[in-house]
């Protein structure tokens, strides 16, 4: 849906490829909210360790990975000019393996002592993620002249390889298949590659193209768009070596946090220089997300040199989650209306709904208000509260409703509207 050398909308995959991931991500989000609601009301007997694992992995895999892989299937042909052949079947395989893998993994975390479940979880999730990475990387490495975005996506996928490998190690150790002598080191690296590498690098890479294009802003500084992604990946690799050799990697973590701080500040600066500053919920999501990213990275930076208490640590996690979700929501509210309109329009439906008919901007604004209240409640309380959990469930339910409405519009137009050849 974007515009850079080699991009082709005609090669874009069918709309179902993206929507199956987005709908699943919303359902996982709703389930997470309901799960936390039960926890807050003391209606489960899970340990806090199991609750933490279930929460983190529902968010990172069920929600974030679903959104991000779905978006990548859609955006790679248009952002990087690469084509994944027969995308419908391939996306379906990744989607099923990932969804089943997440459910098995969550069940394994809940039960805690079933080796077979940990083995199955690592098999399903490993297959889903490695297959998706393979499909995308094998096309990305063929690109002769990379844009900052395509290069950044490549690095984000490399970070996802490390995240997945470390994750499999941890699952097999939890299941008793390996001794796991490096468990705490690998756990630290698993989180570093997942948060700084996969999630952050992907958002940074995509923003280099979409911020300028969606919001008509000045371009990012060339040095930043050229070097930040490779530098962060290099620092993460260096950090792995230091951590595994038992050396301190504090300075490297601080440097990564500082780089992201600068990036987020520049993004806010660019967004305030929009040539047509109209009220748009997707801009608000970006601004809010970047503000949260700044907070999260500031705490990370401080914690690199000073001891921080659990409250500040909690704030760091919530601000990062808030950042990632804000950007995902911003992208969904741009991608879904555009794709629905574009596919129908290209198929020749003269009465194809306009983008604001697919998901009305007011609906996106309502979601933004729900989202900021949700994040505010989670920031203000250090424990799981029924209100924060309920709001989380409402937030994803609202997104699910909007996606459902878009799908209904799409199928209704295909069934009932006249089609012309043009």
């Amino acid at each position, binding site marked *: 849906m974007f515009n850079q050398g080699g991009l082709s909308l005609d090669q874009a995959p069918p709309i179902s490829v993206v929507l199956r991931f987005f709908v699943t991500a919303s359902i996982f989000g709703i389930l997470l909210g309901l799960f936390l609601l039960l926890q807050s009301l003391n209606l489960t007997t899970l340990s806090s360790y199991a609750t933490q694992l279930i929460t983190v992995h529902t968010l990172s895999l069920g929600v974030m990975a679903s959104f991000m892989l779905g978006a990548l299937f859609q955006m790679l042909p248009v952002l990087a000019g690469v084509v994944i052949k027969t995308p419908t079947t391939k996306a379906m395989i990744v989607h099923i393996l990932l969804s089943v893998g997440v459910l098995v993994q969550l069940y394994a975390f809940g039960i805690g002592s079933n080796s077979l479940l940990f083995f199955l979880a690592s098999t399903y999730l490993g297959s889903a993620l490695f297959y998706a990475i393979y499909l995308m990387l094998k096309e990305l490495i063929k690109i002769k002249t990379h844009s900052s975005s395509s290069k950044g996506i490549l690095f984000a996928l490399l970070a996802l390889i490390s995240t997945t490998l470390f994750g499999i190690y941890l699952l097999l150790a939890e299941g008793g298949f390996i001794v796991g002598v490096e468990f705490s080191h690998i756990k630290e690296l698993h989180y570093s590659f997942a948060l700084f590498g996969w999630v952050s690098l992907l958002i940074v890479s995509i923003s280099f193209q979409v911020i300028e294009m969606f919001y008509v802003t000045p371009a990012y500084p060339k040095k930043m768009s050229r070097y930040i992604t490779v530098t962060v990946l290099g620092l993460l690799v260096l950090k792995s070596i230091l951590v595994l050799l038992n050396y301190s990697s504090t300075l490297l973590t601080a440097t990564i946090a500082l780089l992201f701080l600068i990036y987020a500040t520049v993004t806010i600066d660019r967004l305030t220089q929009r*040539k047509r500053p109209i009220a748009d919920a997707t801009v608000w999501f970006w601004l809010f997300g970047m503000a949260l990213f700044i907070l999260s990275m500031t705490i990370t930076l401080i914690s690199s040199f000073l001891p921080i208490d659990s409250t500040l640590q909690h704030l760091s996690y919530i601000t990062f989650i808030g950042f990632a979700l804000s950007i995902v929501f911003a992208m969904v509210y741009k991608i879904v209306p555009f794709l629905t309109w574009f596919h129908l329009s290209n198929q020749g439906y003269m009465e194809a709904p306009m983008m604001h008919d697919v998901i009305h901007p007011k609906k996106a604004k309502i979601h933004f208000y729900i989202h900021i209240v949700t994040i505010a409640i989670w920031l203000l309380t250090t424990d799981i509260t029924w209100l924060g959990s309920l709001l989380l469930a409402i937030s994803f339910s609202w997104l699910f409703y909007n996606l459902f409405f878009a799908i209904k519009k799409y199928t209704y137009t295909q069934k009932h509207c006249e089609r012309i050849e043009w």
Partner: protein
Amino acid sequence: MKKYFLDARELAHPEPLRISLEYLKEMRDEDYFYMINIREPIPLLELAKGKGYRLFTHKDNNQNWHIIISKNQQQNLEELLDV
């Protein structure tokens, strides 16, 4: 021969594509579409090519792209360039 003109330099994505598609659908065979943009609108070009339109693109000294699209097989599109 009618000229459909669009200055997309300050339009956010996907407005240029949306308006362009509207114009292309509306145009008669002898008409042509002229767009100025800050980037080469590859999605639009791919789409128009796929639908059998003829294309001409030119990047001027100010780094602006001039796009001319028509169904007219006889018309020399380069002649319509206005720089």
